[in-house]
Structure formats: structure tokens, C-alpha cells
């Protein structure tokens, strides 16, 4: 409780420091992983490997960014991984020739590329209509949507792999700019813009207010439903872009793209300090969570861990990271 009589002169300073500590709770874990990596593998700290980690993390990063905003607003979306599969597939299908499995519509590349984020946004809008508009439970709606979207993708692709697209479709994942893959720039840019907006724009603060206490936000004049729509639509569009990044790195789209990623997305967000109950967490934390998991995956690959055991180890280390994050912040994530 505050003592109104004697506000400590060091108060504001201490408080700012404490806030940053929560954001940076993962830093010890990240540093620890860097040290372990450097000690156990000669190539880990090499420039090319670090760039690899960034490139491999950028699709996950975009998904984590989307999920983090949705979680902070007090909702959740389990269908992001299927959006990351279906939306780029649609973009491919309208562009590539029928002989390669496309619709045969032969639309120009720019239109195909434009359709990808639009499709993601549209799916997000459908989710919003069901959750915000109809008041259905977000968990079960997006779980069902995840299955529906995956099924549509499987049906559309029919077992083929879509690759015969113009080079622009693969630019995000394959081309470099100033020494870094394009997708790293895109992810970094999205994080920067979203991080700034969440901190300094009224819309971003409204996301926190709605997640923290929706009735109070409503009483303060915030249009709560509109915030719900916005995060789900933006989250869908970002996930679609994440899917394009994956397609670019792999060089193709198949029916499995993005499948199973949602668990990693939630893990990265929660490790990074995003509360599943809304209203709490920062994008800096989410970014660190993403990088932690990216490094971890890279390290396990470099260490040549048997492919049969990699999942068990990966999951175990995620649990460990949660414990470390809990101990460094000293507060329960879900209290």
C-alpha cells in the first residue's frame, strides 16, 4: 500500500527499474543459453549462425507478436498457425499455373501477394464476428477455426506442394538486405511499430486497458468491441505474413505449413511474460521469448541431438525457462 504521508523520493526511479526488470526477466536465461552455446559449440557464436537464428526465428516472431497483442487484450487465438498455412497458399494458388496445382486464374504476382495479408485479416474478422459479435468462447471458436482452416488448406492443396510461383513470393525468406535476411527486417519492423503503438498510442493503451478490466475500460469510453475486432484482424494479417516468410524460407507451401506452431507461439509469449489472463506483458518480453526458443532450437540442431529426442528436450527446456522466468520476476504468472 502506498504511504501518502511520505512518498519515497526514490520511488519513481525504483518503479521504472522494476518495470524494466519484468520486461527483461528472460535476459538471464538468454545470456545463459548464449554462454552454453559458446562453450559447447565453436560455430554457435559465428556471425552466419547468429543470422541463421534470426532468420529462423522471424516467422515465429511475427506469430508471437500477433498472439501477444491478442493475449494482452484478454483474448486468445489458436487458429494463427493455420492462417499462416492457408493465407499464403491462397496467394500462391491464384498466381501459379493450373499445371502446377494453381486455380489457373493467372492473376499478377502483386495481386497474389496482396491477397495473402487480406486473407489473414478476413479470417481474423470471421473469428472476431464469432467471438466479439456473437459472444462465443474464443478458445473453442479458434480451436475449431484452426481445424477448419487446416482442412481447407489440405483440400485446396490436395497433397501437392506449391512452389512454381514468381520469385517475389520467396523474397521475404530468401533475399538479404544489408547483410540480413529480408524477413528479419520485416519482423523487426513489425515489432518496433507494434511495440511503439502499444506503448505510446491510445489504441495500444486501450488494448492493455481492455485486457486489464474490460468493464472499466468501457466506462472510460473505450470501445471494447472495436479493440477486440482490431487485435484479431491485425493478428490474422500478421500471421499471414509469417506464413509468407515460412514459404520463402522453405521455398514452397504444403498442407502442413505452420502445423503445430501454435504451442511454440504460446510458449514464447508466456515465457516472455505475457499473461494468459490479459492486461499484462510487453512485446520486448515476447521478443526475448522468441529469441530464446530460436536459439534453443538452433543449439539442439548444432549439438546433433537425435531427431527422435529433440521434442522431449525442447519441451523440457520450455518448462525450465518458465521456472526461471518465474523465479527471476519473483511473482506468479497466473495468480
Amino acid at each position, binding site marked *: 500500500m*502506498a*504511504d501518502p*504521508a511520505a512518498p519515497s523520493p526514490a520511488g*519513481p526511479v525504483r518503479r521504472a527499474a522494476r518495470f524494466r526488470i519484468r520486461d527483461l526477466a528472460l535476459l538471464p536465461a538468454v545470456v545463459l543459453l548464449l554462454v552454453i552455446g559458446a562453450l559447447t559449440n565453436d560455430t554457435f557464436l559465428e556471425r552466419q549462425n547468429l543470422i541463421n537464428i534470426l532468420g529462423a526465428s522471424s516467422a515465429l516472431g511475427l506469430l508471437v507478436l500477433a498472439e501477444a497483442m491478442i493475449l494482452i487484450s484478454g483474448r486468445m487465438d489458436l487458429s494463427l498457425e493455420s492462417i499462416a498455412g492457408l493465407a499464403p497458399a491462397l496467394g500462391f494458388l491464384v498466381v501459379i499455373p493450373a499445371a502446377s496445382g494453381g486455380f489457373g486464374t493467372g492473376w499478377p504476382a502483386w495481386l497474389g501477394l496482396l491477397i495473402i495479408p487480406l486473407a489473414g485479416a478476413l479470417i481474423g474478422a470471421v473469428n472476431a464476428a464469432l467471438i466479439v459479435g456473437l459472444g462465443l468462447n474464443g478458445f473453442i471458436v479458434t480451436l475449431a477455426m484452426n481445424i477448419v482452416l487446416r482442412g481447407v488448406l489440405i483440400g485446396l492443396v490436395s497433397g501437392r506442394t506449391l512452389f512454381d510461383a514468381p520469385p517475389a513470393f520467396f523474397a521475404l525468406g530468401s533475399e538479404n538486405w544489408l547483410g540480413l535476411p529480408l524477413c528479419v527486417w520485416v519482423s523487426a519492423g513489425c515489432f518496433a511499430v507494434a511495440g511503439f503503438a502499444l506503448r*505510446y498510442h*491510445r489504441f495500444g493503451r486501450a488494448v492493455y486497458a481492455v485486457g486489464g*478490466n474490460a468493464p*472499466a475500460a468501457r*466506462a472510460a469510453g473505450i470501445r471494447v468491441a472495436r479493440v477486440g475486432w482490431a487485435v484479431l484482424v491485425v493478428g490474422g494479417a500478421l500471421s499471414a505474413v509469417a506464413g509468407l516468410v515460412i514459404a520463402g524460407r522453405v521455398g514452397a507451401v504444403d498442407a502442413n505449413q505452420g502445423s503445430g506452431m501454435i504451442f511454440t507461439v504460446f510458449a514464447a509469449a508466456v515465457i516472455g511474460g505475457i499473461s494468459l489472463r490479459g492486461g*499484462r506483458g510487453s512485446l520486448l518480453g515476447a521478443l526475448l521469448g522468441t529469441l530464446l526458443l530460436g536459439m534453443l532450437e538452433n543449439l539442439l540442431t548444432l549439438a546433433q541431438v537425435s531427431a527422435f529426442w529433440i521434442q522431449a528436450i525442447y519441451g523440457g527446456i520450455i518448462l525450465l525457462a518458465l521456472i526461471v522466468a518465474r523465479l527471476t520476476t519473483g511473482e506468479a504468472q497466473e495468480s
Partner: protein
Amino acid sequence: MTGARPPLVEAIGITKRYGPTVALMDAGITVEAGESHALVGRNGAGKSTLVSVLTGLTRPERGTVRYDGGPAPALADRAAWRRRVACVYQRSTTIDELSVAENLFLGRQPVTPRGRVISRRRMRRQARALLDEWGVPVDETARAGGLSVEDTKLVEIARALSRGTRFIVLDEPTAQLDSRATDRLFAHMRRLQEAGVTFLYISHHLREVYEVCQAVTVLRDARRIVTAPVGAMPPGKLIEAMTGERGGLPVPHTAPPPRPFGATAPAAVRLEQLSSPDFHDVSLAVAAGEVVGLAGLAGSGSHQLGAALAGLHRASGGRAWIFGRPLRTGSVPAALAAGVGCLPRDRHHEGLVPLLSVAENITMPISGRLGPLGLIAPKARDAVARRAIADLGIGTEGPAQPLSELSGGNQQKVVLARALAIDPRVLVLIDPTAGVDVGAKRALLAAAIRARAEGRAVLVVSDQLEDLRVCDRVLVMFNGFVTAEYPAGWRDGELLAAVEGVAAGDG
């Protein structure tokens, strides 16, 4: 009563403090077996604390509780307390998703003759027998969550009776009941009383005291004022005992001389036959620079009327104007645009975002005005917050402190600052001093007086006399209708009588 038999329960010289707050000071009560005893007093008089002492949930600092002439059980011996006394609270303690029978035997379900598994058949049979024995007309297989409030109370009473308890505390049992359900509940109470059950009956509705109780104890300011047979306490006397003869008022009434308004000046707030499911045909006007009180108990519709002005409740009929412009009810942005600021009823529900900072909470309604393109300049935001912190005397380390770390009174001041942030022409304060300490209370009411001096129209929705005392006039609502109006200078008794829905002239 005869001297031969000791009273069922007797509490003597009970004193209990919570920090600096004195909840009970040398208070006591004596309940004779077989009577229905009313416990009345205003909010904060000490009723809940006394009940909590009588039910063994709170250990008093001084004083003794005796049951049937013997000492009360140790606080840790919950089973012994449960045999002696049970309390039926306002909020039901049944589990919605279980059946009535399962609720009745929760934790002590009948088992099969030899096995250790629950026999649902036996449980149903025993439940039926129990309900029949006490004449409770409830289906034992029904889902508890589907019962009416009245039936839920009866099930809770039956559960207590089945444990052997014959003394039952009813805490405002009629708060959510309509008059017919209340009558039915009273019929049950009378029947149970004839069967030997003793009731301690807590209510804000004084009429009910006369209907079902034989004796009454009045608490005021943590002390027992009187215990008497109901016949010896006519309403006038009862209200006098509850309110007392007050000397100095905590907030002096500083009504300005009435100012004449030009015929062309529109009223700050004008309502014409405004209706909703909670209030009916309310017509009133509030002038700029006037503080109007809206007094009413829960269920009177006063809260919803205030909330309707602030956009938190939608009216279904009638019209509302703010400074001559029609107001769309049910939309907060519309209310804010019209210049209506509101301190909502329950700060934890609609007031606070506890994880966000003091500054963010205060500036939430004006977040679009703190920078270009919807950006929020931290400097501008903190400047607004600092001004509010200074103006209202908010006890905080600074604008960046999370609101969750502030005391209740300071949180309430932040919610008031949020209402004032838009520089409202109309200020609606709903239960502004609920759950805050005396100092914060004074500061909050002083802010209402200052708002009047600044030419705002202020509507204070409350049933607290201290809140209403700052008002230039008070409208009383009862059962959804505005039933009376008092200019400043009303007597506590007459106002309270109107709020309670009894005529003060009785007796």
C-alpha cells in the same frame, strides 16, 4: 422472558477494532430462544462484525459470547459452531451445478449400506424427507443454480437445520426478492419459528422488522443503542435510534443561495419520463451549479438512473437532454461527448484497471487529446495526472505507480479524477464514498462541492446521509419511482423514512 431459561445467545461487552477503525465498542445482543430478533443499523454500524462474532468467525478483543448460558466453543471448533448457529448470507453459498440434494449433503453424503460409495438413492430420499420435514417446497433433484433466490434461501436454511442448528442468522434475505416472494419467505419463517427455530434478522427494510420480528436491537457507530420488543419501538423511534441526534456534520452544508436561471437557459440535465426495466417515468431537471442527490436502496433504480446518464445503462423509454441536446443513453462515448463524467458504482468493476498506472487510469477518457494522431505523449499525460493528484490529494508515489498498489480511498480518488478528466459539464457520482475511510470520504465530498462552485451540474446517487448532505436537494427513489423530494435542511429521520419506504409519521 422467564428468568429460568438462559437466553439462546448472549454477547456482552464486545469490542473489535480493524486497524484504526472501531467496528464494535462495548456492544452486545441477547437473543431469546424461539424469537425472531431484528438487528438493524446503518451501513458501518457494526452489524456484520457482530454477526461474525456471533458465528465464531471473528474473535473479539474484549467481551464474551455465551450460548445457552454456557461458554461459546473455541474458534477452531467449526463443527461445534455449526451446530449452534448458521448464517444465510446475501450471496448464496450453494453450488449451482449440483442438485438440491447434493447441496444439502455436501461433504457428508449418505453411503451405501456396506460400501464406501455415495448412495444417490439414499441421498435423494433423505433430502426429500428433510425438505418435507421443514415444509420446503423444492424438488430435491433440481439443479441448485436454477432455483429462485427465495428457494435457495430455504435450501440453505434446511441445510443448517439438518445439521442440528436451531439458530439462524438471515443477512438481508429480501434484498433481491420482490414483495410476493418476501411474503412467502416470511410465511416460512413464521412456520419455522413455531417449530422452534430462532432467527436473527438483518434488514434495511424497516417494514419487514415489524412484520416478522418480536424484538429489535439497534446498532449505531459501533455501539448498541437499544434492545426492545418491537411493539415498544414505533418507526419514528426506530429511525431516531438508528440515526441518533447528530451534532456537527462531517461535511458542512454549503448550499449557495438559489440562483435564478433565465427562461432560455436549458437545464444541464433534463429527463422526461425516462424508463428502463429498473426505473419508471423519471422526470427531473438539474441546473448547472447545482448538486442534486438521488437517494434509494438497492433495487430502487437510483443506481441505474445514474448509470443511464453516464452511458452505462440503456433506457428503454422517455428522453434525456444534456444542456438542451438529446442524449443517447447506453453509450459511454456519447455521454462523454455530451460532457457527462461518471464515477461508477463499483470501482473494482467499472472503475479501475489495476495493472495500469495512476496516470493512465486518470487520462483514459482523454487519451485522444494527449498528442497528435492518437499518440500519447507521456509528458502531457503525466502533467494531467500530477494536476489531478494535487487537486484531489491522491496519496501515491507518482503518476507511474500501478493503481493496484493504492489504498481504497486513493483508488476512488483516481476514479473521480478519471471522471473529471474530460472537464465534464455534468458529473454523476454513484456511491462515491462506498468503502473508503473518513479522510477520503471528506475529500471526495469536498470535490463534489468544488465541482458545483465550478458551475458543473452534479448528481450524487447514494443512500449515505453524509453523501446526501452536500446536496442542494435530494430526490428519493423507491421501487423504480421518484417518490419524494427534499430541499437541503431535511431531517435524517424523514429522509431515511422515505428511502426505506415507510411514513415517518407512524407512531
